[in-house]
Each structure stands twice: as C-alpha cells, then as structure tokens.
C-alpha cells in the first residue's frame, strides 16, 4: 500500500449522527442538580446616572434565592479586557453597572431562582432609579466629546494611523473620487445564544460554556478571581454557532462565576434572544470617508481613509478590530501612497466585538465601492480597473503599504475565473440591450475582489498534541475548539495523513481544559492553518520518535525500515513493530505549538442583480464566488464555510442592521425585526476556486471561514449601483428596496 493521505477528501463529519438525532448536548442541555437559574436586570436607559437599585421586592418574593446589584457584590471583578485591546482602566466595563449606565441592555442586577420563570418574575420586581443623560449614538458626533461617557476622558479611545498623509498626491492627481461609507452594525446572531453553567466544588469551579476559546476564558476567569488557573476547568460542549461573538469573557460570565463561588451552588445563565440583541456584542459599525486617486488610465495613485469605528459603550474587542480594517485597507491592489486613520470611539450603544470577518469586510467593502466609483468616473470597466491594479502574482511575498506581508496570490486568475463563471460578457451585453431598448428591469453586474487575512494575530500559535495509544489508536488534542466547523473530522484527516494510518484510528479531543490545558481558540479563520499545522507537526514528530524507537526495537538502521499503516517493517523480512507496540513500551506522544505567519486568502465575487423598476425590489439573480484558500483539506467543510459565510454577506448587503433611535433605544430586539436570510433568500450560487498554496505551512492551506462575508457585500452593492447607472446616493448597507426606489424615483 502506498502513502495514505486524506487531504482533499470529504469523509462524513463525526458529530453529525448525534446532531441530527438531537442527542448531542449544548450548554443549555446540561443538567446539574440543584442548579439555580439567573436572570439579569438590564438598563432601559442608554445613558444615565444609576442612583439606586431597589432589590427589596425581588428579595422577598417567594422562590427568589437571591437578588444582587453591584452594591451587594463589592468584590465583583470588572469585565476583563481582551488580549491586545487598548482599554484604559478608567473605561473598564463593570460586570454589573455601578453609578452609571452607558447602554440600553447593560446588566444592572441579577436574580436567582430555582427556575427561569420565577427568576424572571423576580427580575420584574427590581427597580432601578436612573437619571437619564443625553445619549450619543453615532461615532462622528461622539468623537467631538460634546456628550462624554467617561468624563473627563475623551470618547476617542484610540487613534491608529497607517502610512502618512497623502494630501499632496490628492491635490495633483488627475482623478480623485470621494465617498462616505457606512458599514452598518450587525448582530452576529448565532442560533444558540450565549450560555454558561458554573459548578463550584470547594475552591474549584467547573465552567460549562458556549465558547470559542476555553483556555483563554480559563486564564481570564482565574485572573479575575485571583485564583490559580488549575482551579478552573472550562468545558465547551457542542456550540450552536459563534461567529466571533463567543470569544470573550462577558460581564455576565463574571457575575455567574462570582455568584457560584460566593454561594457554593451551581448557577446557570442562558441568554434569551432579546438579551442577545441588546446585551451581547455587535459587529461592524464604522463610518468611513475615502478618497481614492488615480491617473486617467486608472492606475491607482493614493488612498486616504478616515475611519470612525463605533465600538459601543465600553472599549473591548471592537477596539482592535477597527485596526484590522486599517491594516487591510489597501486590499489586493498596488497603491503607492496610503494614509489610513482609524479612530475607535465610544457611544451609548452595545459594545462591539468580533463578528465574522472582523474588520476585513469593512475594509473590502469600502475599497471596492470606491473602486467602482472610480471606474464609473473614468468610464472604465470595473473588471479592467481591478486587473490593472492587482498586485502581480510574481510580486509575492508582498509587503502592503500598511505593513501586512501577503504570502502568495494570483488575484487576476481568480477574477478572470469569476468573470467566466458569471458569464460576464453576456451579462454586459444583456445589460446594454436593456438600456438601449428600455425593455425589462434594470440589470446590474457587480464585482467584489477581496483579500482575507487568516490565522489570527501575527505569530499566534495553537497547541496540538498527538498520542499513540497502546492499542494503536491515536488521540489528537487541539486548543482549537469548534462551533460547528467540523474540526474533529478535518483534524483527524491531518493526523491520519501524517501518520499514514486509517482515519478511524484517530480521535480528536478539544474543548476541555483538563484534557487540553493549553490553547488559543477558534477565530480569525485560524483553526486549520494554525491548529491543523500544529497537529501535522506533532504527528510528524511522533512518527519520527516512533521510527527512532522502532530502529532500536528491531535493531536495524532507520534506513532499513519501511513504514506503512502504523507498522515499521525491516525491509526484506517479516520482522515488524507497530506504533501501538512501541507505545506500550513507553508513552509515545508529541506536541507542537506552531505559529505560522498570517496567510492572505483572496478571491473575486460577481453578483448579478435585477431591480424592480416600480418597487425597488432587489432580485439577486446569481452570485459567483471564486475563493483561493490554498490547498483544501476537506472540500465539503470548506464549501460549507463558504456558503454559510456568503449568506451572512447577503444578510449584510440586503437585510441586516442593528438600529438605535436617537435616545439609544435598540429598535431591533427580536428575529422578527432583525431579518436574517431564510432559505427563501438563497440565490443561485456558483462556487469555484483557484489554488495558490500557502508557502508558510506544511499542508499549504489558508483560512477558509470568512471569505464569503467579505467578498459578497461589495459584489452585491456594486451590482445594484451598476443597475442604477452608477447613482449611489443613499445606497447604504443594507440596501433595501426603499433605498433603491428613492434613487429610481429621483431620476424618473
């Protein structure tokens, strides 16, 4: 038998039989005897002075075990700042509001009872005395500090700059287009909301939680409570989606863990959908002012972007996600001069954090819209304009003007393939025909080329270990904890391929800090690129160790050994030893914490839309997605990530938006108001790929989780604007029929 590799195959996902049967357990399904249910009382004001919290009625209600505000819990830690965010201590996020509330939905008190209904009734009896203050909702006005959230400190938390001012280039450039772009706020909206169960046992706590990064949460809880991390065990059961919004330590988690420790009783909190809209973190939320300069042939000369990121009431993960936007703003293009300034600004709204794409969709959308404006101004074909300015495939690794080092790419190839699959020339001909004859509804074709960035922060590692068991089975452990991506299957493919053993012999353990104490987590499209590479290295090291031992065991040189399917055989004999036998003699295991450079997946999306001339209704006729994420380990899983991400991109382009009124009241508090795409919104999708291997990891793969939501919105909106003949006034995200109608009605 030859070399056994599972790379490029799509074996069935291991968790699915249990999931389709409803047999697997999520955090809300875990039964802990005697567990109390917690319900939070949340601020109804977006901004105000919290004078008092009256808990008396709740405390005396039958069935209420306890009711607490910050006043009753003097030792309650603050919400810990996430790694890498710049959070000034005076702007820290209290786990329960003290003295001041800064967004509607902020936790003020918590009520405990034996069941949720009783706890909710108790929460109704809590009275918070709040003197309202003027609220500031938009980051632009907030940056002027007329209304301050943390006097005397400015609302501008941080300013990050990339490059240097380009005014002189702008002043002398033959063509400059300007545009103001709103990247709307989105609610990540995993179908499973947040949830946590904390079970104390003496000084130890066991935390069952719906989370992306259990090891990080463990460290964070231990630091918050001033205890050894060894006392904290975090177990992540099945997770019902996360999309970036389950990677933090939330105020609610601090409160629940604190109460469980204080009372010595298990406590759980399962978020309801209304809380998920107001109290969990949002994504996006940027106002971007772009100037793009070019010569008359369309060669880009300079880009300036002034970005105001609305990071909500407390600086948290959203603070550095805005920096990602700045970092990615030059996209796949050669732009000689660039200046980006990103201000992170607090407002009286729900704090922002990661949501799928986390900074990159904001960058790609702004740049691609500006490019189409430029194409329109020049009368150039938008595809030609992109081809003219792409980084040449021979220029990689390429250092972007913001300092990012792109590993590899062939952007022109992806774009050409996308045009071909979209029938671009035919669609343009049909568009010309309709425009000439006046027949039919307006047709538009839009392009979104993008560059992704996968792997998490530069140099960040992931833990992977591979242990050969005496029975010849293999246990792989990874710090990358899944939320539905299918890690267990894909990681087994990597390990089985490296060890050249049957796939079924490899099991994968994740998501329990007793089993995997070290790890970083699943976000930033990093699991396979970083975690998979670590497992590959660990498996490789384990095999080399086994080879060494086999050589000793069989008393021959390594060169005289043949390895096949878990067995070393002395060439030309029937003397052999298996991996299992070697592991019986002495534990056989290896581990790795590999930290490859970031990778830069890329691609081009093409959307074809038709507009209803009378109602402005938008019909997405076709969406072509050409992605390049390097070598694909499991095509079915990658396709699943791609389609799922694309539909989220469609949601951003056409349906989803978190809206606050001028007083900071959220106007979207349910799935009735916040329109997620349903199956009825799924367009005709054409998926294709180019393959440019990642030179920096052993398997040549790059991240594949986020591309769809990056490439899709600009492709769709560019198509809509194209159908409108380039008129884009008021065409903000999400583009509704009403916005389209307004443009159509102005011109008719």
């Amino acid at each position, binding site marked *: 038998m030859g070399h056994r590799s599972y790379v490029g195959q799509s074996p069935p996902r291991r968790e699915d039989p249990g999931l389709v049967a409803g047999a697997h357990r999520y955090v809300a399904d875990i039964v802990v005897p005697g567990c109390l249910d917690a319900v939070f009382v949340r601020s109804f004001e977006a901004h105000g002075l919290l004078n008092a919290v009256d808990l008396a009625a709740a405390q005396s209600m039958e069935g209420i075990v306890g009711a607490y505000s910050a006043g009753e819990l003097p030792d309650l830690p603050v919400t810990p700042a996430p790694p890498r965010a710049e959070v000034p201590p005076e702007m820290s996020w209290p786990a329960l509001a003290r003295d001041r509330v800064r967004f509607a939905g902020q936790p003020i008190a918590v009520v405990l009872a034996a069941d949720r*209904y009783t706890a909710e009734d108790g*929460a109704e009896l809590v009275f918070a005395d709040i003197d309202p203050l003027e609220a500031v909702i938009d980051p632009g006005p907030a940056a002027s500090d007329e209304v301050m959230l943390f006097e005397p400190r400015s609302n501008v938390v941080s300013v990050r700059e990339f490059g240097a001012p380009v005014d002189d280039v702008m002043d002398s450039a033959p063509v400059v287009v300007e545009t103001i772009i709103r990247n709307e706020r989105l609610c990540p909206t995993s179908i499973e909301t947040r949830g946590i169960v904390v079970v104390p046992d003496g000084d130890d706590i066991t935390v069952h939680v719906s989370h992306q990064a259990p090891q990080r949460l463990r460290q964070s809880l231990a630091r918050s409570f001033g205890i050894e991390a060894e006392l904290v065990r975090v177990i992540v059961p099945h997770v019902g989606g996360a999309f970036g919004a389950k990677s933090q330590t939330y105020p609610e988690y601090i409160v629940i863990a604190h109460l469980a420790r204080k009372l010595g009783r298990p406590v759980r909190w399962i978020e309801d959908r209304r809380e998920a809209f107001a109290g969990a973190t949002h994504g996006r939320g940027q106002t971007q002012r772009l100037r793009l300069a070019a010569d008359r042939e369309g060669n880009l000369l300079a880009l300036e972007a002034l970005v105001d990121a609305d990071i909500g009431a407390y600086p948290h993960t959203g603070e550095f996600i805005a920096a990602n936007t700045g970092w990615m703003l030059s996209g796949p293009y050669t732009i000689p001069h660039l200046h980006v300034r990103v201000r992170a600004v607090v407002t009286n709204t729900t704090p922002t954090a990661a949501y799928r794409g986390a900074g990159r969709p904001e960058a790609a959308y702004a740049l691609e819209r500006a490019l189409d404006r430029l194409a329109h101004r020049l009368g150039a074909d938008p595809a030609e304009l992109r081809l003219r300015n792409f980084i040449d495939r021979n220029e990689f690794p390429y250092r972007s003007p913001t300092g990012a080092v792109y590993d590899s790419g062939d952007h022109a190839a992806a774009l050409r393939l996308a045009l071909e699959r979209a029938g671009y020339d035919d669609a343009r001909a049909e568009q010309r025909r309709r425009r000439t004859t006046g027949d039919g509804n307006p047709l538009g074709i839009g392009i979104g080329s993008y560059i992704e960035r996968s792997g998490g922060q530069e140099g960040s590692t992931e833990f992977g270990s591979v242990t050969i068991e005496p029975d010849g089975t293999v246990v792989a452990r990874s710090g990358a904890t899944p939320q539905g991506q299918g890690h267990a299957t894909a990681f087994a493919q990597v390990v089985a391929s490296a060890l050249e053993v049957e796939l079924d012999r490899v099991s994968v353990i994740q998501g329990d800090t007793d089993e995997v104490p070290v790890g970083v987590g699943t976000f930033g499209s990093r699991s396979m690129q970083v975690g998979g590479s670590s497992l590959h290295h660990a498996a490789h090291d384990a095999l080399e160790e086994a080879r060494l031992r086999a050589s000793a065991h069989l008393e021959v040189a390594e060169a005289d050994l043949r390895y096949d399917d878990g067995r070393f055989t002395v060439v030309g004999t029937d003397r052999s030893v298996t991996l299992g036998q070697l592991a019986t003699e002495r534990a056989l295991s290896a581990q790795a914490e590999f930290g490859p450079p970031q990778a830069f997946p890329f691609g081009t999306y093409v959307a074809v839309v038709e507009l209803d001339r009378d109602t402005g209704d938008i019909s997405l006729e076709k969406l072509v997605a050409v992605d390049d994420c390097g070598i694909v380990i499991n095509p079915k899983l990658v396709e699943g990530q791609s389609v799922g991400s694309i539909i989220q991109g469609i949601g951003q382009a056409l349906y989803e938006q978190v809206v606050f009124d001028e007083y900071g009241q959220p106007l979207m508090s349910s799935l009735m*108001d916040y*329109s997620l795409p*349903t199956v*009825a919104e799924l367009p005709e999708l054409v998926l294709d790929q180019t393959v440019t291997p990642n030179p920096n990891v052993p398997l040549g793969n790059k991240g594949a989780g986020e591309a769809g939501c990056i490439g899709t919105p600009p492709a769709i909106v560019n198509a809509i604007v194209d159908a409108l003949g380039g008129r884009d006034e008021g065409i903000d995200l999400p583009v509704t*029929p*009403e916005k389209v109608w307004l443009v159509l009605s102005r011109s008719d």
Partner: protein
Amino acid sequence: MEVLQPTSWGEALAAKEEHPGAVPLAGGTDLLVELNFDRRRPETIIDLTRVAELNEWSHVNGGVRLGAGVDYTRVIAELASELPGLAIASRTVGSPQIRNRGTVGGNLGTSSPAGDALPPLVASGARIELAATSGTRVVPVEEFCIAPKRNVLAPDELIAAIHMPVATGPQQFSKIGTRNAMVIAVASFALTLDPPARSVGTGIGSAGPVPLRATEAERFLEGVLDEEGLWDSRGQLSEGAVARFGQLASEASRPIDDVRGSAAYRRHSLGVMAGRTLAWAWDEYRGTL
C-alpha cells in the same frame, strides 16, 4: 395564573363572563411570546383550542362562516376557491409552523395593523361575529379595529366567527416586506372584484392605525368598469385607469415612518401593489370568459 380549557362554546362564553379579564388563547403566536418574555402575566387564560365549534367553517346564507379558530393552513387548503383573497394572504403569513397554529380570529383579536388576514377581510366586507353569554352581535370588520392593537370586543365577549361572502370573481393580495419569507408587511393591499354586484373592494394593511379601505379607488374603478361596459365586455383596462386606481389607493393610506419603512415608501408601494393586483385580477377575469 389559571388556564381554563372549555370544551364547548357555551363553556367558553361562561368562562369569559366569569373572568372578564381573561385572555383568550388560540394558536399562541402572539400570547406565548408575551408569556415567554415576561411581558404579560394574565391571571386567567382561556384556551380555546378545545372548542370544536370554533374550528369549523360552514356555508351560511350563501356566505362562509369561518370559525375564529380555523388556522391559516386550513384556510389555504380548504377555502382557496371560496375565499381566494384570504387564502392568498394566509399563505404569506409567517412559516408553516405559524400557519398551522395562527388563526384569523387571533389576527383580529390582536388587531395589529400589520395583520395579514385583515386587508382581505376589509376588501370582502367581512363581518365579525362577537358572542357573549348575553347574546351575539355582528360588526363590520372596519368597525371592529379601532386603533393599533385595540378593538371593540367587550370584556365578556369572544370572537366567534368571521362571515364572508363567497368570491364571485377574482381576489388578490400583495404584500411588501423586508425579505422573501417570514415577513411582517411593510405594506399590503387586498383587492376583491364582485362582478355580479358590479363592485370593487379594497383593503390596506400596515399603512394606517387600522386596516383601511380605499373607498375612492373603489368608486373610481367601479365607475370606469361601468362606463366602459367592461364588466360585460371583459375588455382591456386602460393603463391610465390602472394607474389612477393605484394613485387613489395610495392616497387612501395613512402610514407612518418606522424602522421597517418610511411613510413615503409605504404610500408609493401601495400604489404599485394596487395597480398590480388590479392587473392580475383583471387578467384573471378576462381569462375566465
């Protein structure tokens, strides 16, 4: 909290008389949301799902008497020929799960201006049968809803049934929303053509405090059809007439700006929907020659 579960209409009315503050419960698509989110903790709930009489429909006096507890799925499956406008509207309600539970009676009880069933009821001149132990009264649907989420139900009354004439001609319904499915109407429009009576009925949803009629549009179209003899000739309706009808329908609305859409867009889209439903209905009428 107490849940009463009458098994007959008489028991239900007696329960409502004894507990005037009791909240009636049918498919639960509104009330359960309020219970789940602790917005409401009524002392008494009267579960009407075991009252067989409410779940029946029948022919009465040449019309349909639709029990208030008949769900949308049954309206679609069983009444598409008798009440086509209501059946089309029912099909746009929520999802199969919602249509399996939600009822026309419940839609009336909630009296939301966005209730999908209400415009077809208005367009067809539905009359609502309200009952109490003391007796029964019948109220035109336009008089039933008096303000957003308010109606004329007395504390001891329950909605017994909806009386609607059997369709004698084409009926249409159109709705504009924020996505393709699971849509709360930004605006909706229902149209009923009654050729034997030479009359036109309209209903406007989500564009006023209550479901509205576009009376002037109705009169205008009736006039055109009469003057041009189109009821008999089944000839083509002029583009101008269709446009004018849409314009009058649009002018009959009293929309507000809200997060789902502006008043201006609601007004505009109503005009478009009125014109389109008329074109579809008239094509159908011409096709049935």
